[in-house]
């Protein structure tokens, strides 16, 4: 194997190139028009264009990619994840052409590709699957009988239902009978399909998956588990390895079942067997992913393996280099997915140029997998993931602490991002306790996210930071007295303090007499700076505003203003301006041209209804109502150009 074409883009392409380069194998990047200057194309030895921006016209076009393989002289293909990674036909074509596919064979891919077939297969080889009745249940009486057989609680769902609709949980016979009728009714009236299925209901489900590695000679190992329960709308957000829920016995049981399944389909390469795990410690097979997973780095961090390297070696025909007893499980690793989305506005996707992008520095405890750098575009055409941030610690709490610090250090300007949200999740007592379920985010943030909670200690912390920043900024313009007495407003709270200054060190005296020394690395204009306050290290992001600063740390974002006592007194006289109530206004998510306004003043709209069409970046974007309401004012007309955050509609 001399040259690998990576049939992918973004961070995974970059990550594969790094390993290939270390192994002395040349790399070929493919790119669409939108990715002409993307990081992966700059990292690879060669690059080949495969089409237009949309994936369907580039990265998903088998013919173009085959052509790129031929043109570049690559003798192997790594598909990454997504795109063609689980496309058996593509895999087979490569086989026929004598090109090595770095992944499983097409047979295994097909066998695992069908959800129902794979479950049947799993059951047949003794892998746990969710108990249930394979056929539609004809009536309420049958539903009760089946429910008794499976054991309560059971889930009764309409065949066409989903997302909570047409589904109910029954804990006894009466509920089972009632549940059957309502699911059948729901299915009939909404979907014209009254078929109803019954299966075991998994309480407080967790998503735990086993990483496996198999060579061409029938050897296989399982590389421990990853817990991926923190999800938002089925999209994984935080993953970790190991899982705080598993003990060694359960881990081994799951590992052995995963391997049994892999061997049953003659699996070769890296793969992942996903399980749903109940509060009762039962585990059931969900599906098998026949590719490298997004979250594979957490496994790498605790096992010390490079999964891409292992995949390449296996593809080259090398036997596995390790036996099950050699597999390590060292410390704890966590991965956060940094998405371009705005957690403060119901996770509305955000795109555009990364005006600033400075991830934390990598070391043996912090890893950053990204496919972008400052100046790159987060494109509307692809996955909105900006980066994966992975931290390692001797134990779970250390890994969490490192992650929180790393998130504070991660500077992104341009598209909105979910860093605050991730930081708040990691600080949640239930998360820290390892008490996770796949419903975690839905349960704790039903109304969306509005910043991590702010306690008195944090207010004081932000006040001290703001005072030190103000001191440094003001000292640029004129010498300051040795001490300054200030009142700092942090959102609605205030803190009085006295700052005395020495180079690199501020002494803060609080009203209660507490004296704190602050070692700061802050210099005027800095956007990220570390403050050591009373021996405690914290990194803060700082943005200037007309009235002061916006400070962000630990998932909390506050407005800070530093004033003398007299000016603070005067500030109390300033009128409280009405800020745009995000529940009542619709702002432009991106600059563009309003091509059509679909509602008029006084009109009743329901959540999800299209309000207007916005042409931006040559694409038509729909702007929908976030909740039900009545349109009070339409502030735009069709044909008007609007800027970011302009008010388009106001609701009553």
């Amino acid at each position, binding site marked *: 194997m001399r040259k690998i074409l990576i049939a992918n883009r973004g961070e995974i392409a970059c990550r594969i190139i790094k390993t290939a380069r270390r192994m002395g194998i040349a790399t070929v990047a493919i790119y669409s028009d939108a990715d002409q200057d993307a990081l992966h194309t700059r990292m690879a030895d060669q690059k080949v264009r495969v089409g237009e921006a949309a994936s369907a016209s580039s990265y998903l076009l088998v013919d173009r990619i085959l052509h790129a393989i031929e043109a570049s002289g690559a003798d192997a293909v790594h598909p990454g994840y997504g795109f063609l990674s689980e496309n058996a036909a593509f895999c087979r074509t490569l086989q026929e052409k004598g090109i090595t596919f770095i992944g499983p064979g097409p047979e295994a891919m097909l066998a695992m590709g069908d959800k129902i077939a794979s479950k049947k297969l799993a059951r047949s080889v003794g892998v746990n699957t969710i108990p249930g009745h394979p056929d539609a249940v004809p009536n309420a009486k049958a539903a009760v009988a089946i429910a008794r057989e499976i054991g309560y609680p059971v889930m009764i769902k309409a065949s066409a239902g989903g997302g909570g609709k047409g589904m109910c949980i029954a804990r006894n016979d009466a509920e089972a009978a009632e549940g059957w009728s309502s699911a059948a009714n729901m299915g009939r009236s909404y979907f014209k399909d009254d078929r109803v299925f019954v299966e075991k209901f998994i309480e407080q489900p967790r998503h735990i998956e086993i990483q496996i590695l198999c060579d061409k000679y029938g050897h296989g190992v399982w590389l421990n588990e990853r817990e991926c329960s923190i999800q938002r709308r089925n999209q994984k957000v935080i993953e970790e390895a190991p899982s705080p829920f598993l003990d060694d016995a359960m881990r081994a049981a799951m590992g052995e079942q995963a391997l049994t399944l892999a061997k049953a389909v003659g699996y070769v390469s890296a793969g992942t067997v996903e399980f749903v795990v109940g509060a009762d410690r039962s585990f059931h097979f969900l599906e098998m992913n026949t590719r490298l997973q997004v979250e594979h780095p957490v496994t790498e961090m605790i096992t010390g393996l490079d999964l891409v390297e292992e995949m390449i070696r296996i593809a080259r025909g090398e036997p596995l280099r390790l036996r099950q007893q050699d597999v390590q499980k060292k410390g704890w690793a966590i991965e956060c997915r940094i998405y371009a989305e705005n957690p403060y506005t119901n996770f509305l996707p955000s795109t555009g140029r990364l005006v600033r992008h400075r991830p934390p520095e990598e070391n043996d405890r912090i890893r950053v997998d990204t496919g972008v750098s400052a100046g790159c575009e987060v494109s509307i055409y692809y996955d909105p993931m900006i980066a994966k941030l992975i931290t390692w610690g001797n134990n779970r709490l250390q890994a969490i602490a490192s992650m929180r610090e790393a998130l504070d250090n991660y500077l992104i300007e341009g598209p909105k991002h979910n860093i605050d949200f991730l930081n708040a999740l990691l600080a949640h007592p239930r998360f820290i306790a390892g008490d996770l379920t796949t419903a975690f985010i839905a349960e704790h943030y039903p109304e969306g996210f509005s910043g991590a909670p702010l306690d008195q200690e944090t207010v004081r912390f932000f006040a001290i930071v703001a005072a030190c920043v103000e001191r440094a900024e003001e000292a*640029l313009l*004129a010498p300051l007295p040795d001490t300054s007495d200030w009142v700092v407003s942090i959102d609605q709270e205030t803190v009085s303090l006295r700052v005395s200054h020495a180079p690199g060190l501020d002494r803060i005296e609080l009203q209660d007499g507490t004296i704190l020394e602050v070692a700061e690395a802050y210099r005027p204009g800095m956007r990220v700076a570390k403050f050591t306050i009373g021996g405690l290290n914290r990194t803060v992001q700082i943005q200037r505003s007309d009235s002061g600063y916006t400070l962000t740390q630990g998932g909390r974002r506050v407005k800070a203003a530093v004033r003398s006592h007299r000016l603070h007194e005067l500030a109390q006289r300033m*009128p409280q*301006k009405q800020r745009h109530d995000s529940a009542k206004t619709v702002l432009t998510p991106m600059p563009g041209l309003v091509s059509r306004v679909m509602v008029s003043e006084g009109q009743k709209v329901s959540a999800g209804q299209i309000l207007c069409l916005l042409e931006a970046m040559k694409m038509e974007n729909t702007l929908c109502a976030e909740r039900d309401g009545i349109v009070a004012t339409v502030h735009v007309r069709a044909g008007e150009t609007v800027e970011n955050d302009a008010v388009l509609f106001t609701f009553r």
Partner: protein
Amino acid sequence: MQDIIDRLDRLRTEARLGGGQARIDAQHARGKLTARERLEALMDPGSFEEMDLFVEHNCTDFGMGESHIPGDGVVTGAGTIYGRRVFAFSQDFTVFGGSLSESNARKICKIMDMAIKVGSPIIGLNDSGGARIQEGVASLAGYAEVFQRNVLASGVVPQISAIMGPCAGGAVYSPALTDFIMMVKDTSYMFLTGPEVVKTVTHEDVSAEQLGGAITHSTRSGVADFAYDNDLVLLKQLRRLLAFLPSNNREAAPRIDSGDDAKRPIYSLDNLVPNDPQRPYDMKELVEKVVDNSDFMEIQAGYAKNIIIGLARMDGRTVGIVANQPMILAGCLDIASSIKAARFVRFCDCFNIPIVTFVDVPGFLPGLQQELGGIIKHGAKLLFAYAEATVPKVTVITRKAYGGAYDVMSSKHLRGDFNYAWPNAEIAVMGPKGASEIIFRSEIKASTNPEAKLKEVTAAYAANFANPFIAARKGFIDDVIMPHDTRWRVIRGLQTMEGKQLALPWKKHDNLPL
């Protein structure tokens, strides 16, 4: 003696209450600070020295003889901002509605005269119901005396006006003559004639806010340069603005140690300009990244947004930034943007502030509206301003510099000191397609497939002419620079031109096409 001292103390205390506690409370209830509170917030703590505290009006008509309040509705004096002396007047709305009397105008004139004499900025905090009607023509005379001094001080010391309450009728002209106008949102307005008069004359039903509020003037009329949320934010930003400026036209702006590395490369600028020439990009990103500490004080941010103007520092020295904004109207020059930039270029030239210009301009905005509006004359203002400016001028063309707009935007030919271009820059009379249509008109017409022919000749034209090297060969571009080196190259250009001396031919004054 102690009695006398106590009496003075009492008189001062009384005088400082202005129109009395009830009126002060009313002022506060409107969300406004009093005249003296504003000065406190504006000046360095304890630095303000009030003058003419005991001045009273001399009007006896309409019962005014019985009504005297020391200070007569305006607080005047001197203080410091970041340690530098400034003169200021602050109209006291609690005293006769802050109306302008002969005596109170004299107070304003007194500090203006002093400011001109010693070369310090003049700051006016306006909050006045207008002329003291009881005084009649004497009040009008007072205005005119102030106007005259505004004009004499123009270009000598910086003059900044803050509108912090009503400012109507003749009162608007003093701010209009000054260098910058700042307004407070919701609590200030300025117009020549108020909503009632407008209603009777033109039958238009408009609110004071629509007619002359901060939003109106900072986004629609261009009268205001800045609009802020409240009195305190405005005064804080007024201090910030002052810190960028020299005290008078004979000094340079104060230089600070910004701590920002002059040679800092900025690699993200290498892909600021999109590959697709039709796609816009945000010029403000370039400005904010190249200036010291990303500290850019944009002026008229909400008006004529196709051009960006503002103050910043580079290597600690104040510079004026002028930049086309491709995000708005493709960054073209039109009437509003030409006037906006012209006035700013002249301000910088008055006060020895070097001008850094970033160019991405496809030309002047075509159209009937523009021509009828006199784009010829207004565009000429910007051309005039750049041509007459004698301060150091460094220019960077980031993408397009087409046609007459190329000449206007601080070109080499208008005595530009350093004219740089990014490697992707296109300097030409017009875009490749337009040029090809004219040059190859007959070839295209004669072709069996005119569309393909046009494409072909356009591509050939673009390859040969849409680059900065033709201009560089002629010396119109001093160097083609790496985008990531822009900060350092601009700073070095400014350093090289420090101490630039350039005299204009003797003239009484020029005749800018107004």
